[in-house]
């Protein structure tokens, strides 16, 4: 009979990888839920990408850390660094991108983007031809996200993300959406058709890795502590006598004999 053994630790062991596979299955269902979420006019407006694996998640986490140290991100630096740890600790990352907000406004004149000017708030801030936004022109982008975006589509992406999170909740899988993960992943080329991307971290572990997070989490976290323990233990173990030559009950005396200290011999 085939057997599936699932266990959280050691990380990336066969049992842990089996567990992660199940989270990935859940994330695939979340992806579907994102696609079926209600959206204005029923117009498809999003793309999704699912990322997992030590190397892939590390790449996204490092990009987040890189962004955290840029001067223009000073006010969000802590968020980027803290959430980078979570990106590493997640079982997988579900990325949802809005493919329309930048290039094809909904044209409903709703007013969310800029009030009285209607959709012209968006159009007047882009190069246009024949009433269409020239999607090839990215020269206006001076910020992390190239706005303004059609807010109808942005709001619709919220619906998609929430439907994905609803499925996670139903499957009792931990999941949380993050701006920082989305921005970093987009810079790495995920969700290429989108300007507005949100990253949902997904995990099925005993402790939800995305809550109860303390300050300076980027330097004090499980991974770092375990690594630190390994380093310090390896050094410390070398300051003890050999277990075969000197049993623990003779440890102090034996050491004294060898050192030739008469007081210790007594």
């Amino acid at each position, binding site marked *: 009979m085939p057997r599936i053994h699932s266990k959280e630790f050691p990380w990336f062991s066969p049992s842990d990888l089996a567990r992660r596979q199940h989270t990935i299955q859940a994330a695939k269902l979340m992806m579907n839920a994102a696609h079926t*979420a*209600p959206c*204005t*006019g029923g117009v498809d407006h999003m793309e999704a990408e699912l990322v997992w694996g030590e190397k892939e998640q590390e790449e996204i986490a490092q990009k987040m850390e890189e962004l955290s140290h840029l001067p*223009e991100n000073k*006010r*969000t630096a802590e968020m980027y660094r803290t959430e980078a740890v979570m990106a590493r600790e997640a079982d997988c990352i579900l990325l949802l991108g809005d493919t329309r907000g930048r290039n094809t406004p*909904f*044209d*409903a*004149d*709703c*007013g*969310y*983007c*800029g*009030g*009285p*000017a*209607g*959709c*012209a*708030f*968006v*159009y*007047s*801030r882009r190069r*246009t*031809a*024949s*009433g*269409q936004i020239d999607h090839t022109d990215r020269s206006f*982008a*001076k*910020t*992390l*996200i*190239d*706005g*303004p*975006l059609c*807010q109808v589509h*942005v*709001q*619709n*992406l*919220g*619906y*998609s*993300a*929430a*439907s994905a*999170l*609803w499925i996670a909740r139903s499957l009792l899988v931990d999941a949380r*959406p*993050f*701006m920082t993960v989305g921005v970093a992943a987009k810079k790495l080329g995920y969700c290429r058709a989108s*300007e*507005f991307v*949100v990253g949902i971290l997904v995990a099925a572990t005993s402790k939800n890795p995305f809550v109860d997070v303390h300050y300076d989490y980027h330097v004090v976290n499980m991974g770092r502590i375990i690594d630190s323990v390994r380093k310090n233990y390896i050094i410390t173990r070398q300051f003890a006598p050999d277990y075969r030559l000197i049993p623990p009950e003779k440890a102090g005396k034996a050491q004294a004999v060898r050192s030739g200290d008469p007081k210790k011999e007594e």
Partner: protein
Amino acid sequence: MALLEGGAFAQERLLDAAGHILHAYYKCPQVTSRLTQKAVVVTGEELLPMLEFIETLQGKLGKEATQNVFFPLYVDYMCFRTAFDQGHPPLVLVLGADLGKADLGWDCGACGFATCAEFNRYRKEHGGLGKIGAGPCCAWKNFDYGMACDYACAAASEMNVENRILGTFGLVSFALGYLDGVTAALALAVGPAVELWWYNRPSLARWRTAEHIQTLFRNNYTVHYQMFSSDLRPAVKGDGLWWERPREFGQVAPDPQYEAYKNEIQGAVFEAVLAVRPKVEALKARMEQRSKELASVPQSDSDKEKAS
């Protein structure tokens, strides 16, 4: 114990569903953790002012004009009015939030401004109303607002309660002031306990003919890539600063003036042909004459040898 009529009991228990829906709405996950959701439950006759708003418009403008004020609004109005008249009015959860304050300090640029401070300055001086809500919005708060509304919809769906979230009646509730201190409002209709009430829309058939619908499609398809969404006569975009010019509308319809113009052009073409054609005839005659002359020239001896 009492014997309860099922339909009436289901109608009565819509309020229970509304409570669960609102729990989901308020506790939804957020990216910003700074969104303050607001909501109000509109039940029974409290819904009437919303319907009266459209009926007041109808009294002023006439039915056809009211249908054209904001076409989808009338479609939804008819669903409400029919349900109300049939004795099973839906509840309306007006879900709103203030999206107009950029207090995250993320300076992400998604709103179109380089910093949150610039956004707030612009908002103060130039912000205003559109067809559905007020702008500009903080994009991440708007995203969170979308998440909250979706959680409300998902809760309703999970309870198998008929529902649809409506921008149209969100606008009406916003305009009539059902909810204070918000820049965006959407109306989540909950109930009635009828299959696909908000999707099958049987009330549409009472006033939309197949011809109307075909006209709508024809007007919209012709300018599909340049139009504003789904108006009876869509506003059409163009080159340059088209939003500063008088609006242009698309329509497929007979055009006698253009028809006469086309006929005039056609007549001119025919006259031009008649004027020029004799010259071509003369050229052809000259060509024929030349061919005959060439044929009558005597052949040389060498040509005769080749021919033999």
